[in-house]
């Protein structure tokens, strides 16, 4: 049983790793670099929680 579980773990690892690589490729070829790297630190903070004493 334990050896079988070990093989199942290898299988799951390979399938999920392959899925992530596929999704990574799909996203990077669908969206522009400017959109993907457009996140800015503190942006929401500045809009929604203005610092008033």
């Amino acid at each position: 049983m334990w050896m079988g579980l070990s093989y199942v773990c290898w299988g799951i690892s390979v399938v999920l790793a392959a899925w992530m690589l596929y999704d990574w490729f799909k996203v990077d070829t669908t969206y522009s670099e400017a959109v993907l790297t457009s996140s800015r630190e503190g942006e929401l903070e500045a809009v929604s929680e203005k610092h008033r004493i």
Partner: protein
Amino acid sequence: MTAAVETGQTVIHGDRVSLLRVLGPAHVWALGVGIVLVGEFTGWNFSADKGGALAALIVCWIVGLLYTSVAMIDSEVTSTVAAAGGQYAQAKHIVGPLMAFNVALFLVFAYTMLEVSDAILLGDTIVAKAGVEGLTHNSFIAATIVVLAWLNYRGVLMTLNVNFVITAIAYVSIVILFFSVSPWTQGAVLKLNELVTPGNALPYGWIGVIAAFQFGIWYYLGIEGTTQAAEEVRSPARSLPYGTMAGMITLLIAAAMTWYVCASLMPWEYLGITYYPLWDAGKLTGSPLLENLLFIATLLAALASANGCINDAARAWFSLGRDRYLPSWFSAVHPKYRTPYRSILFLLPIALAFAFIADLNQAITFSILSGVLQYTFMSINIMMFRKKWPLGTIRRGYTHPFHPLPAIVLFCLCMVTFFAIFLGFGSQLIAMTVFYFLISLWFHFYRYKFVRRGDQFSMPWPKPQGY
């Protein structure tokens, strides 16, 4: 805001793709306690090997003081600097870019090495339970790291919902064990008065207590990871202090229960070398139910810790990319899952490589060292924060009491811990110091010219006093 950008099935609102603000205080608790709780299942007990059972209890309390200071200081600063990267973002705004770069590396090292240790622990625990010749831990390590990376890739809400459930189960298992051994009656199951006597309580004297600090860190290592969720909680000023302080209280209770049960069931000579103190305690009760419960809880605690570590290491790496301290390629956010997917994927093979080639002691030591370096920074950071922005000049979600006492206590205890690490792993301490020095030179003389200096300071704060 510009019009929505439609691409394929995913709609991006506005012209920015940001991390999602979907988390609440319970998720913050799950992140912090999830990372730490594995330390009750293995790690803390090596302090008994350094100084005896009583030393393990003394460092439980004193290191508890260290981490209470960490939690209070962290809660105050991060309730103001609500950005992914946690202590990195704090260092950047309060101390400066070089400190921030180093702090981010401390974070990535501490969490990645802890993730590696968790995966090795999980694999070794399964192999120990199976007792099958030829079965190795490699497949279990690979599955742990890859499945959790996939979960993190798919979204932070599900990741921390899972963490909440498995952390709660692991925690409840400690409570069940505690009440199952009749803790109010010594002699029935527990034999503390026979196992810890005046003759063997401190076998190496007070220097043993100092040496025990190195592994006493494991009782609470990682609670400061709650701040990495700052950009993804709905109300950071409220949720982060609440989740962090609740997490610290939870851990102090768990640490005390764990020590009491384990020290009352095992002699210190064995307690100090076993990899599974709580699982062994479950076995020693003679109850198959408790034994299996503690076995499962050990696995769940390791999973929760690795899961939180992947979350935190990826946020720190992502933040470095966003400020161009590293190539901005790492700052990409997944347009559908809203996670730092490239950072998660980049750190995945690194964790796998270390898990396959490093041994558990080395990985743990690197994690502890990076953590203590970070706590030392925090004691200096809060002094500068209070000096530059005194109370009343900036809105704080939480203000910690007795300043500057917690900062002084934290700094002094960090120095003691460095000495303890030097006693046990002096060469690693020196090697890591040299590494951080060299990487600082690289950052200062080469990398910093790529940074957009005006863009990195994003908080709408007033000018600091004296500037």
